[in-house]
């Protein structure tokens, strides 16, 4: 084994995530940060990127790349108030590229922020009581929580646990507030939090001074909707509810989607369901899982550093034993649960408390004003009158939540006025598809994703119609690289980018986030992908069982990847 990876060295020398960020920000001759700081700024919720559409042009122009920054919020459970919405909306214009983007972890992303305005942007976000710490980096990222329990006491419970979990696992360094907010830290209610240690002398009792070996994702799922794709998470909690009461959670560990093309040692893995715990033990158990990964995760190879490899390298029994030892005893056996879908619950529905929720379809989570679809303006108008809250869903959609009966007509009118009713007009394919950002900002992308989604969906819908299957549900996900931001490895049909215009085609996932798909063919251009799908759709149309979905048919024909256990049977 070789020594620690270069990022480990950067972390360890960073004085708890400070590095030379302040100097980098102050350097006026470049729009970039110093190289080491580009690693550290991730922990602060931002990535340095460049406009890849302009990269070659600017090279010839003897200009540095068009550097800009992506800022991602920390937003446990994806909850924002109308006032926060208006602040986010203003930031999109004042500092970013005029759009808001909702992510598959229920956060918002801003793109195109230049270095000289980065600090002002951070200040504007924090003024709206939204921070960005640990939204990226080798830490517990934004905690996802099921977004479709609106109007039931369980919604508040899920959100509350996601917030507590997020807070509990946050870095304790004050570097974030020192660098971006001149040391002024405030609590969620706006009250100041004083510093207790000198800068750089704070303690990181949970994460340690070098933080985690790699990113760490956690989520809380509320059956029967697996919108958070709990099996894709490093750490997951599946709520176990009886008669409307939360009994506790099944613990899941070791999920993860990321892989690298051509490196068989990297692979997606579904989380293992390893036990049950009562609600009050959630933080203790989560912290223990994090500590195990902190202590045993591979710090020499970042492509082998997620919890899934730690578990596979040592075996699940080892993990059980280690966890039991640290917790002072084993967990109870997992309880029965059943997921019916990983998709969103679109349109209007009424909660137990009589309040209404409205889930809107926002393809790729991009909120922009476009010809015929002035969505950003529409949602700003809605935020101006709405008195409940908003939920970003892990499927990049938006729930307008907690709507009183009397507000319904007003909101419905606004939704129509601003053409926000795509959920009613879209085919199931368009309604359920996911895409990551990819070009032109993501430095990892090898191919288009978000920008390609609309055209590809249209072509696949045409193929479905051509094969006598118009409007047939089909879960499609497109990513520009195999790191898995849009969880493509769980889709019935997935394109994973290899080069501009070329994708690996994966088939055979299910619609509940419980089966990995498998590589069907590599490096295909669009005509080849469409020809391949056309052939398969034709066969599927002929051979499918009643209502049999494409992914299930593919799997029956040609078994796809591993399947997460469905414990429904265990209950009976």
């Amino acid at each position, binding site marked *: 084994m070789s020594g620690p990876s270069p990022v480990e060295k950067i972390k360890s020398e960073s004085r708890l995530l400070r590095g030379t960020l302040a100097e980098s920000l102050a350097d006026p001759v470049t729009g970039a940060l110093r190289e080491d700081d580009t690693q550290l700024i991730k922990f602060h919720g931002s990535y340095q990127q460049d406009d890849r559409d302009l990269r070659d042009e600017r090279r010839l122009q003897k200009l540095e790349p068009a550097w800009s920054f992506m800022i991602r919020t920390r937003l446990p459970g994806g909850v924002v108030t109308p006032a926060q919405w208006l602040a986010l909306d203003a930031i999109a214009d004042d500092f970013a590229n005029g759009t808001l983007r909702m992510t598959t972890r229920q956060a918002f992303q801003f793109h195109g922020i230049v270095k000289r305005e980065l600090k002002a942007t951070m200040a504007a976000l924090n003024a709206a009581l939204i921070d960005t710490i640990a939204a990226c980096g080798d830490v517990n990222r934004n905690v996802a929580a099921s977004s479709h329990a609106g109007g039931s006491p369980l919604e508040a419970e899920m959100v509350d646990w996601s917030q507590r979990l997020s807070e509990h696992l946050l870095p304790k360094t004050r570097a974030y507030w020192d660098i971006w907010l001149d040391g002024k830290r405030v609590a969620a209610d706006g009250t100041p939090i004083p510093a207790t240690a000198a800068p750089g002398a704070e303690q990181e009792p949970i994460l340690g001074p070098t933080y985690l070996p790699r990113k760490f994702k956690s989520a809380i799922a509320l059956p029967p909707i697996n919108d958070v794709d709990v099996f894709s998470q490093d750490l997951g909690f599946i709520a176990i509810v009886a008669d409307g009461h939360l009994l506790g959670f099944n613990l899941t560990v070791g999920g993860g989607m990321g892989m690298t093309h051509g490196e068989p040692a990297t692979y997606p893995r579904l989380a293992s369901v390893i036990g049950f715990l009562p609600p009050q033990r959630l933080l203790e158990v989560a912290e223990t899982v994090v500590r195990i990964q902190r202590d045993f995760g591979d710090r020499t190879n970042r492509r082998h550093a997620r919890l899934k490899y730690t578990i596979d390298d040592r075996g699940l029994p080892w993990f059980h034993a280690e966890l039991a030892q640290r917790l002072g005893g084993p967990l109870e056996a997992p309880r029965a649960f059943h997921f019916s879908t990983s998709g969103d619950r679109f349109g209007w529905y009424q909660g137990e408390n009589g309040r209404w929720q409205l889930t809107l379809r926002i393809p790729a989570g991009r909120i922009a004003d476009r010809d015929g679809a002035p969505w950003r303006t529409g949602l700003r108008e809605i935020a101006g009158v709405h008195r409940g809250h908003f939920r970003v869903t892990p499927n990049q959609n938006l729930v307008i939540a907690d709507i009183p009966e009397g507000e319904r007509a007003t909101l419905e009118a606004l939704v129509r006025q601003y053409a926000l009713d795509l959920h009613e007009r879209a085919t199931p394919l368009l309604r359920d598809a996911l895409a990551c950002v990819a070009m032109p900002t993501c430095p990892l992308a090898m191919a288009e994703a978000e920008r390609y989604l609309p055209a590809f969906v249209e072509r696949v819908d045409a193929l479905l119609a051509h094969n006598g299957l118009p409007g047939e549900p089909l879960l499609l996900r497109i990513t520009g690289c195999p790191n898995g931001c849009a969880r493509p490895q769980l889709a019935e049909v997935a394109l994973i980018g*290899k080069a501009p215009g070329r994708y690996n085609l994966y088939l055979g996932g299910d619609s509940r986030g419980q089966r990995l798909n498998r590589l069907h063919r590599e490096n295909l251009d669009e005509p080849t992908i469409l020809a391949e799908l056309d052939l398969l759709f034709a066969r599927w149309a002929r051979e499918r069982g009643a209502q049999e979905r494409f992914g299930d048919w593919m799997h029956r024909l040609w078994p796809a990847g591993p399947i997460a256990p469905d414990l429904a049977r265990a209950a009976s």
Partner: protein
Amino acid sequence: MNATLPASALDNEQHAALEKLVQGLDPIALSWASGYLAGVSRARAGSTTQPLAAVTGHGPGAEGRTDAAIRATILYASQTGNGRRVAEKFARSAESTGLAVRLVSAADYAPRELASERLLFMVASTHGDGDPPDDVRALLDLLQGKRAPRLERLGFAVLALGDSSYPKFCETGRQLDARFAALGARRLTPLQECDVDYEPGAGLWVDRSLALAREQLAEIGGPRLAVVTPLRPAAGEASREKPVEVELLASQRITGRGSSREVRHLEIAAPAGRLDYEPGDSLGIVHRNPEIAIDGVLRAAGLDGSASVEHDGRRQPLSAWLQAEREITKLSRPFLEAHARLANAAELGAALQPAGTAQLRALLKDWQVADVLKRYPAAWSPAALVGALRPLAPRLYSIASSRLAVGDEAHLTVAVVDYAQDGERRVGSASSWLAGRAAETDTVHAYIEPNPRFRLPADGQRDVVMIGPGTGVAPFRGFLQHREESGATGRNWLFFGARHFDDEFLYQSEWLAALKRGALQRLDVAFSRDTLKRIYVQQRMAEQGAELFRWIDGGAHVYVCGDAQRMAPDVHAALIDLVRVHGGRDAEAARAYVDQLLAERRYARDVY
């Protein structure tokens, strides 16, 4: 200096003949002969850059050049790091067996160095479907372009890394291998292509290459090569009267797409002996007026371009006069006076009176001939108009390069003037003509306009402060190239300004690379329109006043280039002020201090 040449590569007979030739030559003739020999040497080497190898004793940097000739270069272009790893392994093995090798990333490799390489081992990855790593694009551009150097003296081997699942497998390596060979280099071993599991193939290649490197270095590392110390040859033949027709090699916009201003970087052939220049000199361009400007004049005057006009004993159509022989984008006072009379324009007449100075200045600055003709109509005859307009003068552009860095080329930084006046498009005459000369086959007529007042210090240990906002930065690109290539040890400080950081930071990537290399010590920038309050270079000078004064008081040379109307006076005032504040002098003494700098030629300006 002793008259005998050290470490001569000449035999006794040749040496005696040379001694005989040299005797009796005066310093100017000696200098000329030296330059002549340099030219011959360059021509024989078939290279556009400096002579390849130097021997001893001819100033700093000479030793370095010797090494370049007898060591192997391991060059890598890597996207994911695999290429770098292979190259590093190769370098380590070579060093451990005592071979002289240099390991360099394509990111840090100046493509023109290629011409002086003797032995090159290249590791190049391909990513995506045939895309080269960003680092190697510049080298590929050079190799595939019309200025690709001949590489007869080069022996090479290429290792290509790729992913065979892409149609264009190992494309970058294949291209490099093919181009090296096509340019005359010797392929020491066939191209080795490696797939995703590159290690076995790469290992074989490294082993084979190590053996080859050992053989080749033994072969070429023996007797050292002869040297010619490059000195400045006599002034080139071309002159304003007799400009030389030279090829336009490249024309590249260097403002980003977000800028409303077009600034272009031009690269023009500058054959030795005909267009010799030193940093600080200008290139005179003999241009023609653009069609749009000619049309504007003809339309405003109501004249037909085909009208035949005799003037100075020559007869040609009016449009030909206007195109190549008359100023029509710049106004002159004599023309305005003649026009005011003919048009009976009292308003124009008033501007020409002593009281109208400000009005006249504005008019001369913003208006072209067509604007005057349009505003104050007059019945010009074709012949009278040709007689009243000034002859077309060449335009001078500060040269933005050093021969030491670019060889037989001169680079220019040209702001393309293009604006609307009264709803009509107006263009700068030479700049738009140059901007239109982008085609591969285009040529320009040019000559060197020496600027002996704007010269780098002869003493390379002196510090240099360069203040060049906008296209005023042009000569400083040449200065910096020259300082670096000549091995000057003094520090360099550049002040640059523009309206916007994002799209108008001229030559930004070159300055950043120079900072990283340590060739530029300080860079201060002012972008006037990125902030609410407008910031200019003189403010940055004031902010850095203490340090700037230390440099100047320590003997630094100060150069200013660019706008003469506002920038130069503001910078001058800023200089006086910082001498006052940080030099502990009153205003009078500070002014005297700066005047003394001018007198000593430690403060030079090239403003326009």
